[in-house]
């Protein structure tokens, strides 16, 4: 009995609860009290507090602490609702967010398609432009020498080439420049040729790099086209939810709870940090939004002052937006850790599930697919189970 009670008390002091629920409650409630104290006159409130006897102070502090803990406990139970709301899953309140979610999804689909086009199907055309120029500017040192003034003129023209003009325009200008190789010695034009080639190579490298980063961004910021969510946070969560399925054909949401059993304690502690940060930021974003709405509704009844309540509400909305950005950053970190967990510990899980160690990657995918079928749908072919060593 006493052990259970102590266990409950210890639960309150866990880092998860302290940072993700208690700390936001400790910030939110005093902020609300302070706002209304300022509205009715902080001087009087302060004088009233000062008039408390030591015993009254003790009792009031104890009661306030208890109220904060209760409030923290309530917001702790609402954590998943907060996550649903900010990740674009929830139609709260009363389906009033429905059109915003649809608009958000359309916008995110547009972003997804643009990234996919650039990353998967986009390719640098500067390589082709370089080949085109190399074919046109044929080296011939028997031609007449290039006057030095002409050399500087050509270098200036090369300097004026910029990639934003597009490959076709650049090709036209390169074609015009290549005409000089028909008139002057290739030996004298070496510097000009080298400058053009280097410029085109740099552009090619830059564009290729951008396409690669777009592909990586597509993988890190989005799940798949059908799972696109209305918010950035929702898509980042979807991206790491789908990582295991897309790489290993494992159902991440199903296997995550099983995987935690085999993850080392040190690694679990590393995963815990961004998760706590994500929960804290989600709670703060939600409470800041609630604060803004609350003061805008109750405020005028205390004091009809649109500057005071307007500015305070604006601060509340800004704080909410700031913490939403923190959520996105924390979700990216958490996503990296979850991906790493699947990469590092999936084979230990395979062993823990009494499946044989796969000899190849394709065999591993096949085994995960079989097991996912069994766990998710309850339908699976007969599969091999690890032989127990005597």
């Amino acid at each position, binding site marked *: 009995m006493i052990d259970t009670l102590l266990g409950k008390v210890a639960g309150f002091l866990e880092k998860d609860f302290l940072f993700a629920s208690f700390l936001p409650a400790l910030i939110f409630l005093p902020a609300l009290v302070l706002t209304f104290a300022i509205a009715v006159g902080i001087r009087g409130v302060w004088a009233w507090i000062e008039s408390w006897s030591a015993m009254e102070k003790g009792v009031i502090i104890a009661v306030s602490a208890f109220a904060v803990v209760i409030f923290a406990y309530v917001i702790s139970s609402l954590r998943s609702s907060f996550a649903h709301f900010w990740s674009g899953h929830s139609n709260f309140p009363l389906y009033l967010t429905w059109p915003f979610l649809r608009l958000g999804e359309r916008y995110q689909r547009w972003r997804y398609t643009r990234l996919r086009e650039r990353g998967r199907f986009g390719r640098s055309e500067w390589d082709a432009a370089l080949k085109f120029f190399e074919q046109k500017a044929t080296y011939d040192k028997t031609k007449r020498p290039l006057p030095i003034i002409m050399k500087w003129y050509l270098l200036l023209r090369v300097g004026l080439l910029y990639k934003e003009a597009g490959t076709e325009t650049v090709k036209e200008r390169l074609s015009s420049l290549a005409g000089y190789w028909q008139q002057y010695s290739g030996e004298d034009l070496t510097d000009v040729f080298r400058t053009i080639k280097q410029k085109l190579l740099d552009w090619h490298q830059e564009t290729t790099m951008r396409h690669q980063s777009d592909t990586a961004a597509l993988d890190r910021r989005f799940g798949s086209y059908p799972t696109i969510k209305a918010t950035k946070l929702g898509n980042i969560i979807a991206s790491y939810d789908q990582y295991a399925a897309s790489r290993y054909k494992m159902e991440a949401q199903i296997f995550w709870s099983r995987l935690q059993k085999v993850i080392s304690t040190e690694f679990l502690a590393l995963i815990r940090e961004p998760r706590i940060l994500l929960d804290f930021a989600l709670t703060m974003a939600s409470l800041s939004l609630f604060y803004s709405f609350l003061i805008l509704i109750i405020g005028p009844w205390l004091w009809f*002052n649109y500057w005071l309540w307007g500015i305070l509400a604006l601060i509340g909305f800004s704080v909410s937006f700031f913490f939403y950005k923190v959520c996105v950053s924390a979700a990216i970190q958490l996503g990296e850790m979850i991906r790493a967990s699947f990469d590092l510990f999936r084979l230990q899980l395979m062993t823990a599930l009494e499946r044989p160690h796969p000899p190849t990657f394709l065999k591993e995918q096949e085994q995960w697919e079989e097991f996912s079928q069994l766990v998710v749908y309850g339908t699976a072919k007969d599969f091999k189970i690890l032989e127990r060593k005597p």
Partner: protein
Amino acid sequence: MRILRLFFANTFYFVTAIICLAIVFSPIVASWWLVYARADVKDGRMQWCVVAKRPLIKGLKLTEQNVDWTIRRVRKGDGFIPDTQSAIGKYATIDLNEGELLKPEYLSEFVPAKTDETSAAIPVEVKSEHAATLKPGMRLAFVQEQEKKSVMVPEAGSGQTTASGFELISITTSSKDASAVTIIISVSKSDLAKLQGLAVGQWRPVILTSPGK
């Protein structure tokens, strides 16, 4: 152009979004509109202020026992006392009812003077136990405590007074000696000769009439 195209492609969602936004913000708009429609709410402000805990008589020195705080709507321009500490120790300059808002003009740092050129305000020290029932406005006589005989009381009609006795202006508790209380009485100039007597010996106040009687 692209924004316009985007708008028309999603007209249904945009229109629904605007309607939903209006519904979400309607409690805020309704709240402000209701306040705006009520002049008493709009022109006032909820304030932490001090009120009389019990009926207060002019000249009474305010203590923690007779003032209290409350949150009340105060109209713009109306004075109020923002904390009880600002009221305690001051004297009421008018009679106040229970729950009445204390305003700076109702309080004074000094005993409200009720004397004119025909009279003077004189402090008399009496024992606390004898001053327990005294209230400003009462008319008093003084009895020599040791001799139990000597009675000092101005007669009605003497000086400017129309009633017998000295009028009690205020009562001040001594911060040094808890057993003594200083009462301030109004003495007409024709009775100033009696002051010499009041300055010596122990005097006990005798209530002749209470205010309003």
